[in-house]
């Protein structure tokens, strides 16, 4: 019987050119993220609002509840609507988004601490692959809490409603919902990537992110209320995100009033939405630039 060499073997044949190398980075990042019990628990708890929304949608059909008797707000929650989605995204899920983003602080910080960049960039990877891979990790987690439940709610609502033309009436909400979810997740993801690239540990990144989001909101509220100048609302990252979400989802004013969404102490109510878009665009640009400045595949050393 021949004895084969079971030690190192050369690869024979052709290897296809490498592409989509951000996918293994994203896959490994997600696996590492969900390896922690706290992250898994938080992601599951973050789906509770979805469960509640689902019950509200299905409940009346199961127990044959006359939803019309509940007043004008009922249409906003017993069917998928702009106001209902705004309530779901900006009030119910927001805390979980914030916490899960904060927990992703180790995405770049851990790589920097363990000198892993040399491992990545001695491979046929570009810096953009690395960036995309890491961003996909955060976006997958956050969109799993926002976009995916929203789409499922749509599907359930469309399946249960027998009204003629309901599909067409609701169709415009689909791209609006996707845009609103991206508005909530992309700025958070990019801010966290930038912060993670300047912090040396995951904990520092988490604290920096939480500090940034909370402090901008607190400062904005104090200045807006004490000086009675709504423009100071632009300081708050959350306020800008919510303002744009409101524009994108365009909730029915009746529904907004019925759900008390209009009575909130919202600082940017009287500020043009374009200002908020500008602020958010500036934050996104700054975050991306900071990331690419801190994470270098190629160290430029020539004088």
């Amino acid at each position, binding site marked *: 019987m021949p004895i084969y060499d079971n*030690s190192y073997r*050369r690869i024979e044949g052709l290897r296809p050119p490498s592409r989509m190398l951000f996918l293994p980075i994203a896959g490994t990042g997600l696996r*590492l993220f969900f390896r922690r019990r706290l992250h898994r628990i938080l992601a599951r708890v973050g789906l509770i609002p979805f469960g509640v929304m689902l019950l509200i949608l299905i409940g009346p059909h199961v127990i044959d509840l006359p939803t019309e008797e509940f007043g004008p707000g009922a249409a906003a929650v017993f069917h998928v609507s702009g106001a209902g989605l705004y309530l779901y995204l900006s009030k119910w899920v927001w805390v979980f988004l914030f916490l899960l983003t904060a927990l992703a602080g180790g995405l770049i910080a851990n790589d920097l601490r363990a000198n892993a960049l040399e*491992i990545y960039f001695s491979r*046929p990877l570009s810096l953009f692959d690395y960036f995309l891979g890491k961003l996909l990790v955060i976006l997958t987690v956050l969109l799993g809490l926002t976009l995916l439940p929203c789409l499922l709610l749509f599907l359930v609502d469309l399946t249960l409603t027998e009204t003629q033309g309901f599909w067409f009436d609701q169709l415009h909400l689909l791209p609006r919902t996707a845009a609103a979810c991206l508005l909530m997740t992309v700025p958070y993801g990019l801010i966290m990537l930038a912060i993670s690239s300047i912090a040396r540990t995951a904990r520092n990144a988490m604290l920096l992110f939480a500090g940034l989001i909370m402090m901008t909101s607190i400062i904005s509220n104090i200045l807006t209320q004490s000086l009675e100048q709504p423009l100071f609302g632009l300081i708050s990252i959350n306020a800008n995100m919510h303002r744009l979400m409101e524009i994108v989802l365009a909730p029915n004013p009746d529904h907004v009033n019925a759900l008390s969404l209009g009575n909130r102490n919202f600082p940017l109510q009287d500020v043009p939405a374009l200002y908020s878009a500008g602020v958010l665009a500036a934050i996104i640009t700054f975050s991306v630039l900071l990331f690419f400045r801190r994470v270098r*595949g190629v160290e430029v050393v*020539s004088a």
Partner: protein
Amino acid sequence: MENPILETSDLVVRYGRNEALKGIDLCFGQGSLGLLGPNGAGKSSLLRVIFGLIRPARGTARVLGLDAAKDGVRVRSACGYMPESDCHIPGLSGLEFTSFCGRISGLNAADAKRRAHEVLVYVGLKEERYRKVDEYSRGMKQKVKFAAALVHDPAVLFLDEPTNGLDPQARLEVLDLMRDLTTNKGMNVVLSSHLLQDVESVCQDVIMLDRGRVRASGKIDQLKQSDGGFVVKVHGVPDPFVALLSRRGFRVERDDRGSMLVLDGNTNGTLNVRELYRIGREAGTPLRHVVPAVETLEDLFLRTLQEGQEGQE
């Protein structure tokens, strides 16, 4: 030289005002190459230029005929690199880490996993491959980096100080692996080290760098000079033999292990084996070991550095 593995031309690397590489030109064919030099000689900078991790201020580096700056992705795809620093991806096991390195080198998931198993067993991480890299000892971390550099079967393997911080046993194991790769598996290896014995035991060619310049390059055997002397060991007391040699005008340097280096001294080239045996007979001292004295790599290294320093002065 036909199809050189590594070729640089007027390569200059600057860190601010400090020039790490000062216009080096080198060419290396197939086989195993040792990059020798003291700390700060520019070895790691050269490797980083090759992998596109730093951009040179001037000049070019070509690997397998590809320009490292322009075809960086193809160069990195064809080469394996084991960095000097302690680096890993926190939270991954040895198997996951190596498999991940295969994936980002372009292997598909199934191939990467299979190769990861193979190379980890090859480097001696058997059951340990399922443990987290964070929990590994220094030696095991070196081995897993070695496996990660090999996982995609590179045409050229660049190793930066691979035996740093290893205990003697682990060091010998890593050296054995490198020898096996170069002699039995036909892989080209570029070994950067300041440990002369490591380079001598693995490589046929050497490039000596000092302060960013190439001081010597070529086959190790050809670079080593014979100084015309002989290393001699004798039976019994060597004193009469040494005394007679000195009277005849030969220079004798004795060491504390019983051997002596006999040099021509002022005899105008009359030293040879026959003459040594004749003098031994006359002194009544039987000789048991006579070999031509050849420079060690350490001697060569020190001489090269000294010549370089004198040249600069």
